[in-house]
């Protein structure tokens, strides 16, 4: 079953086209990767899904419902949770309060503070922030802030989770921990759209990957197909990666 579909999605800013006629379909239950060089329009596409930017042209459907013209909070309550690229935690609130906001407002149910607090604690334990729940935002590390972003999105009980470069700036161990968590969430039935710069991570976790370049879709397929797609290799992965890959293949052949 399709969870999210975009047909001919276009976004113009004044004279600039950030996203140009992009079509895609995301299956329920998959992990869908979105990659592309800087300025390819990845975050803009997420902002279109969220309703932060209005769609210039094209249509978008979530579980069959048209998203065009809906406000961000309405889209969120349909079941689309988002973790931001640049951490957008509410400074001046504690870790717990940050998550609580999502729990109180991010779902269709109207909850009182007590119920929201219980859900919040559960999610915080899941992402491993339980012991730091009363810290203020400036007091926690980058890795913890990324976990917090994930917790804020998860607490809204999303059917589709948008992850915008949640692994940027983390070390290898932290990336592995986070990947583990993402798998766990996916196994519980949550569809995930992940934008990532850390190549290893995207290739490792995505079932299918879409590549954007200057706002256009240039490829969509399995990680293996993407890795072998000439155009993608040229414009995104860069010369260095191509060379390395060739060396690796040469090695394995030599063996």
């Amino acid at each position, binding site marked *: 079953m399709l969870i999210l579909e975009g047909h001919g999605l276009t976004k113009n800013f004044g004279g600039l086209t950030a996203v140009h006629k992009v079509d895609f379909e995301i299956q329920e239950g998959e992990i869908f990767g979105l990659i592309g060089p800087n300025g390819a329009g990845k975050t803009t596409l997420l902002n279109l899904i969220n309703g*932060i930017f209005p769609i210039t042209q094209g249509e978008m459907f979530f579980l069959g419902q048209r998203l065009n013209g809906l406000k961000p*909070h309405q889209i969120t309550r349909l079941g689309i949770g988002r973790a931001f690229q640049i951490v957008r935690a509410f400074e001046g*609130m504690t870790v717990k309060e940050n998550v609580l*906001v999502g729990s109180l*407002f991010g*779902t269709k149910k109207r909850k009182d503070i007590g119920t929201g607090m219980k859900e919040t604690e559960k999610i915080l334990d899941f992402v491993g922030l339980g012991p730091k729940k009363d810290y203020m935002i400036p007091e926690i590390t980058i890795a913890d802030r990324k976990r917090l972003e994930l917790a804020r999105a998860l607490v809204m009980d999303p059917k589709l989770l948008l992850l915008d470069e949640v692994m940027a700036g983390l070390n290898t161990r932290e990336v592995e921990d986070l990947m583990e968590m993402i798998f766990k969430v996916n196994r519980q039935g949550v569809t995930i759209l992940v934008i990532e710069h850390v190549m290893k991570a995207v290739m490792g976790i995505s079932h299918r990957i879409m590549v954007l370049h200057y706002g256009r879709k240039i490829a969509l397929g399995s990680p293996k197909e993407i890795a072998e797609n000439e155009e993608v290799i040229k414009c995104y992965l860069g010369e260095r990666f191509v060379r390395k890959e060739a060396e690796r293949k040469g090695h394995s052949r030599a063996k």
Partner: protein
Amino acid sequence: MVKVSRKGWLLIGGGFCLFLLLAPFLLRGYWIRLLTNMFMFGILAESVNIIAGYCGYLALGNMLFFGLGAYIVAVLMTKFAFSFALALIIAGLGASLFSAIVGLPILRLKGQYFIMATMALMELLRAITNNIPITGGGQGITLPIFPGGAAAANFFFYYFMFGLMVFAILCTFYISKSRLGYAFRAIRFDEDAASVMGINPTPYKTIAWAISAFFTGLTGGTYAYWMSYIDPGEAYQIMPSIKMYLMMVLGGRGTVLGPITGAFFIEFISELVWGKFLELHFLILGLILVLVVIFTPKGFMDLLRRGLSFSKLMAGVKENRV
């Protein structure tokens, strides 16, 4: 520094409240009027705290609701023979309603634009009040005098303002603990992120401003009856608006009791200064503003928490420096 425990604070607070409750029996008229004035600024600072401290929208022209409330009470009591109670309720609700109507278009404006819009709105109301006959124009309106003499009036307005202030504090306390408070604060820190987390900003901002306008309108109405005279220059002033913000910042933005303590502190010294250095009043208030924003932009509680030493003071200054 002396450390005061939680129990200690409760004791000090309780004692102070008891003193305020008994004050009219202990003090002379001058002090009663000064305390009433402090309560009044307490309410005003708390109202500003709801829209600016919690919700992050800097309604710098918030005195517009004060003027509106004052004039609603004045006109209703003199031209239509309403009782004070009824006129005051209409003033509060009227100010709220007005804030909702103008709020819908101007609460969409961000930051600097919203500040300017509220300032212009206040000037607009003053200019209109100055030019229409029902308000008495620039001449102002004289209200009926409180029956029963000056002493009774002192007594009445003291307790009335005190009651209003307690009401405003309780309201703010309730907001801070409720869904409303979380929504307000989320909007203050990052409106886009708040909406992605399911908060529809428009109604919450409107509610925040309406509550703020409600209390400011009530205060204005009470003030008009207390002074038994009101004119446009007095009702719509930028200076008290700025003072409310100073009080809120000094006491602590987005805290329940901060603005009240800020108001007491500033009104108290302002009264002492006003009495002694009439010619330097602007200069001194200006200096206080400058010093407060440079040294205690997060309020004096924050300063106390960090400890009162010169190096820590300078470290605080560094945070906002370019």
